[in-house]
């Protein structure tokens, strides 16, 4: 008997009788200002959140905030300051990216996380390997909590997707919080 059959047979023999799944209906707190709360939480976990009027303002802000370096973006609107097409399919070629500007599909008010799917990543490794990450999200796409987020997303995941909440961080050395462990050292959220 293969291990697969052996394991499945054992599990089947040992599992208790079937119980049903609970309902996930939970009332959402409607009094909360979603954008305000998102900004508060995201700032708390180390993100920089800015409301902007459009891509011109994003460009100005980038020029002010970041040192010169390689910028990659999925937005054609940023073609004059960033590479908007990647010619080399090898993810290693992104090792020297200073700033990546990508679009997030939704934001979650209760935890400051943003959902980013492979469709908007250009390369899966990009939002992780860049030194700094900036995500652009529509204010209307901020949902209350994770239940709402999955309700909106459904089962839609092209092949890879991630909730990203702030810059890469660690507290492994005596619980001192250090930003920029392996991934981006900073995270900027542009609310548009």
């Amino acid at each position: 008997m293969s291990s697969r059959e052996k394991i499945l047979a054992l599990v089947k023999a040992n599992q208790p009788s079937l119980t049903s799944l609970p309902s996930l209906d939970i009332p959402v707190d409607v009094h909360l200002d979603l954008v305000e709360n998102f900004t508060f939480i995201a700032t708390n976990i180390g993100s920089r959140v800015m409301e902007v009027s459009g891509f011109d303002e994003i460009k100005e802000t980038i020029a002010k905030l970041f040192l010169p370096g390689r910028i990659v973006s999925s937005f054609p609107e940023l073609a004059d300051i960033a590479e908007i097409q990647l010619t080399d399919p090898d993810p290693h070629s992104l090792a020297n990216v200073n700033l990546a500007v990508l679009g997030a599909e939704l934001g979650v008010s209760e935890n400051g996380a943003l959902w980013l799917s492979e469709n908007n990543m250009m390369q899966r490794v990009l939002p992780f390997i860049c030194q700094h990450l900036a995500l652009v999200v529509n204010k209307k796409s901020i949902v209350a909590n994770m239940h709402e987020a999955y309700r909106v997303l459904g089962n839609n995941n092209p092949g890879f997707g991630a909730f990203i909440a702030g810059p890469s961080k660690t507290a492994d050395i005596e619980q001192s919080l250090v930003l920029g462990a392996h991934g981006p050292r900073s995270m900027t959220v542009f609310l548009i």
Partner: protein
Amino acid sequence: MKDHAALSEEFNIDEPRVNWHDETLWLIRQKRDKAVHGIPEWEWLRETASQVKNNVLSNLSAYLEQFEANALANGVFVHWAADANEHNEIIHSILRKHQVERMVKSKSMLTEECHLNDYLTENGIEVIDSDLGERIVQLGNEHPSHIVLPCIHKKKEEIGDLFHKYLGTAAGESDPQILTEAARQHLRETFLTRKVALTGVNFAVAETGEFVVCTNEGNADMGAHLADVHIASMGIEKIIPERKHLGVFLRLLTRSATGQPITTYSSHFKSPRQGQEMHIVLVDNGRSRQLGRENFRNSLKCIRCGSCMNTCPVYRRSGGHSYHSVISGPIGSILAPNLDMKEFADLPFASTLCGSCSNVCPVKIDIHNQLYKWRQVLVKEGYVSNTKAISMKTMTWVISFPALFAFAGKTGRWAMKNLPFLVNNKLNPWYKAREMPVPPKESFRDWYVKNRGQK
């Protein structure tokens, strides 16, 4: 083999250090409380998670098959490992197939459970752990002492010494910022040069065949997206039915673990990127056996948040290594005897049964009850040392005869009052580091008999 009591005694030699360990973990427990109080529906979340997990355990074989079918359809290779050895062999065979001798690994308690690093090292393969805490214990040739905070037992000066020796930082450097930067540079080089990356799995969704990996550092993603081959190792209990259930568990996990609202990265891997190979290894290693043990089945609901350790008064003052098992603390003490009753017979006794662990557990595992039940099993099966077994048996015997219990209680109180040296001596382990209480004038029993008729 030293047991928990002996190992904690070693840990307790350095008292300021024990106090520091205790306080650090308590701080994390307090962060958890603060995060939890911000969620009015917290108890609803716990109950819902617990019920989802009940359903998972009651339908696990079907969910595993469903997950496998979907993962295969997504273009992922699926392997099944009955035990630790088979798991290690599968990983090794994938590495051999690709003629790779170096691998980067992100945090996975399952690979610790299977002793994968030792196995691969013996087979001439170099493994580098990329989670900072894990890398630190790896450099120190130790094992993690906590499932979420692997090097919580180490002082920054000790970490500085290790980094000086292995990563070339300045002697005496202990600033966390500088040490983290050194690790960042060293591990970036590793990520960029490894062709195979292994990650753990926090949740796997039967409905979609995808799996979720949660990290704060982004190390799982750095490894997986740069490598040609991504291997994910998961225990078979990590399955959840539908994608929407992730909403419940992701809300609970990090709030319970560190007090953060969510981990920085919750990555959903569904299919390999173009040109990449993705493997999933489904590991049993005793889990199906635990599923059949009605009293201990619930332990398989564990989502490895670590909050039962952070709150446990015994864990905080004895250190993770005193549990001499991969998963330490209250939940580890339930899981370990399932793997080997003889070797881990001491662990269910390493608890005050105060119930704090069960109170914080996000999936409502009745941890302290299970520890209590393990004690009965282990005594009955003869795995407990004679003194402990005899005192437990005597106690059971005494309690079962009300008159004898009353007499024993009276004698005890009389002895504590009139012959204190009989109780307060080194032979009574309860006297160690404790002042014995002054006995009450009247026992609860006497009080009850006298007062129960009165309103």
